């Protein structure tokens, strides 16, 4: 595409990359704290991964191998679109294999395959503030984080239990980082929350429209909020994958007819395919 020839490596200009890189370093130094950054208008809509794209662009090296997933799958349209953007602007190698990737940009999932040291996960984040739905004002939530005043969140979780018998949050389930900041892990299913804890990979979170970057360094203690008498459970559909038979992977439910028929398949398409390969 000649249209992109006029743009810099990985699209962003160097000044913008420096600004994002400085924010990333502060984010790594203060795990779980949301660093404000001057998010740029990207050539894709806000809400479609502009934060993740800017973080990836600021991190990419020429010899990186990039994997992009949306809902766990490499072939969903927005994942295809973002992957193509970086192929075009950074001429970077791409892969669908989790193990082969050096940077994995994701929306809503953490891959099933174990991550390793040296890998970077980049999460696309719509609303980075875990307290936002309890308190809409940024000025208030910033003060709460400053004071580590998370009473509001405790009350909300407790009210859930009183009303529903369990904590009524199934995705974007809040975590506490190293006993200090309460953090939104992005809208991953709570099934994925345990993968955040003590991971060998570096986890970076970018929220473009909300202009925030935050991070979890490798080997960071990340606990999902819970109560002693209502401990956190990383739940998934109680089925095996109807394609590869995996029992430990997160599943998508697919409706197959209008008679109540359904099947369950791995949401991580690369994982599912690798198991089919093993079986064959």
């Amino acid at each position, binding site marked *: 595409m000649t249209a992109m020839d006029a*743009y810099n490596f990985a699209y962003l*200009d160097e000044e913008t990359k420096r600004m994002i890189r400085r924010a990333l370093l502060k984010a790594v130094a203060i795990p779980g704290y949301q660093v*404000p*950054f*001057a998010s*740029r*208008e*990207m*050539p894709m*809509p*806000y*809400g*479609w991964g*502009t934060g993740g794209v800017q973080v990836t662009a600021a991190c990419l090296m020429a010899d990186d191998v990039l994997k992009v997933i*949306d*809902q766990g*799958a490499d*072939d*969903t*349209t*927005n*994942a*295809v*679109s973002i992957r*193509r953007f970086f192929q075009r602007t950074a001429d970077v190698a791409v892969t669908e294999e989790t193990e082969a990737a050096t940077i994995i940009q994701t*929306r*809503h*999932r953490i891959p099933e395959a174990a991550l390793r040291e040296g890998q970077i996960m980049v999460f696309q984040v*719509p609303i980075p503030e875990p307290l936002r739905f309890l308190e809409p004002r*940024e*000025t208030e939530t910033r003060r709460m984080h400053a004071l580590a005043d998370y009473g509001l969140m405790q009350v909300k979780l407790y009210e859930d239990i009183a009303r*529903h*018998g*369990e904590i*009524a949050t*199934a*995705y*974007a389930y809040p975590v506490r980082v190293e006993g200090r900041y309460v953090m939104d892990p992005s*809208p*991953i*299913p*709570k*099934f994925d929350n345990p993968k955040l804890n003590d991971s060998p990979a570096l986890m970076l979170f970018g929220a473009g*429209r909300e202009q925030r970057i935050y991070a979890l360094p490798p080997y960071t203690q990340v606990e999902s909020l819970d109560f002693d008498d209502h401990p956190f459970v990383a*739940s*998934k*559909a109680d089925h095996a994958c109807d*394609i590869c038979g995996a029992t430990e992977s*997160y*599943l*998508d*439910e*697919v409706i*197959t007819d209008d008679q109540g028929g359904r*099947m369950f*398949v791995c*949401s991580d*398409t690369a994982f*599912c*395919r690798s198991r089919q390969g093993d079986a064959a």
Partner: protein
Amino acid sequence: MYVAVKGGERAIENAHAWLAEERRGDPTVSELSIAQIREQMTLAVNRVMAEGSLYDPDLAALAIKQARGDLIEAIFLIRAYRTTLPRLAGSNPVDTGAMVVSRRVSATFKDAPGGQILGPTFDYTHRLLDFALMAEGEAPPAAPTAPADPVAVPHILGFLDRDGLIEAATPSDLTPPDLTREPLELPADRALRLQSLTRGDEGFVLGLAYSTQRGYARNHAFVGELRIGTVAVEVDIPELGFAVEIGEIELTECETVNQFKGSKTEPAQFTRGYGLTFGQTERKAISMALVDRALRWRELGEDFTGAPAQDEEFVLSHCDNIQATGFLEHIKLPHYVDFQAELELIRSVRAAAFSQMEAAE
């Protein structure tokens, strides 16, 4: 393998091809030129320049053509382009007092130096469809012109200012903050609020302004002056030691005169609201002035009544239509994974409730 939506490169490419075909429409109808859009869809071009924050009528026209007339999409194209441009220089503040006006009206004084100039306005047109335009007739006869009037057109509010009847607007040499290069930080100062409003969605700002007129933080605005015209843009060249004019832009400026502040110790004065926008965009400029005034409640010692137009965090967080449209439209992206998590949760909560009900029976 069965996967609900197989996206894939080809689906995207085909969608883009279809989009291009739809954009062009019936190929037996001649194609719109950029010049036609620029010259005949001027107000659309002006809105795209104002909310896109880029003064370039040709690019705005191109964006409108590419966006099939969807102005928010066109604004988005302009914003995404603008953000990649290098910052070569910062201009000096423009002097709207020296504006060459094409329109200038005051609702507060019947006449004033410089006069009332209606200019090219819809105001007194009767909104009757002009079927003659359907016939693609001749160009209209030239409008009568008056000889150029060398009389300066001073700001109306200057007359009130001279008598001390309106709050002083003290000039400042401080460089205003730049929303496009720094993250929004609250509370914002007035300069930042004005920058946000001038880029803000016309419909959103209009709705907020209208709400103040209907009593949600009513501030009794008079249009002290509305002026539209061209001003020179000057840039200091350090090597030369003076400023050079790099071009002219068309601006709309609205200054409102609002109900006064004052106390036993301080004589009453009118207060101000201010709007300034690219191009001929007067609905937006007037709306901006009303919302600016409503947002100044703290500085003017007024009460916060809880009205949306007074709420700086609410207004600034939601007035940008590119942010809003992106986030709104993203909910059509797949959310299978989060929804699946919700499904499991609701099934589990229901199962627990049913077993409790059974146990109770």
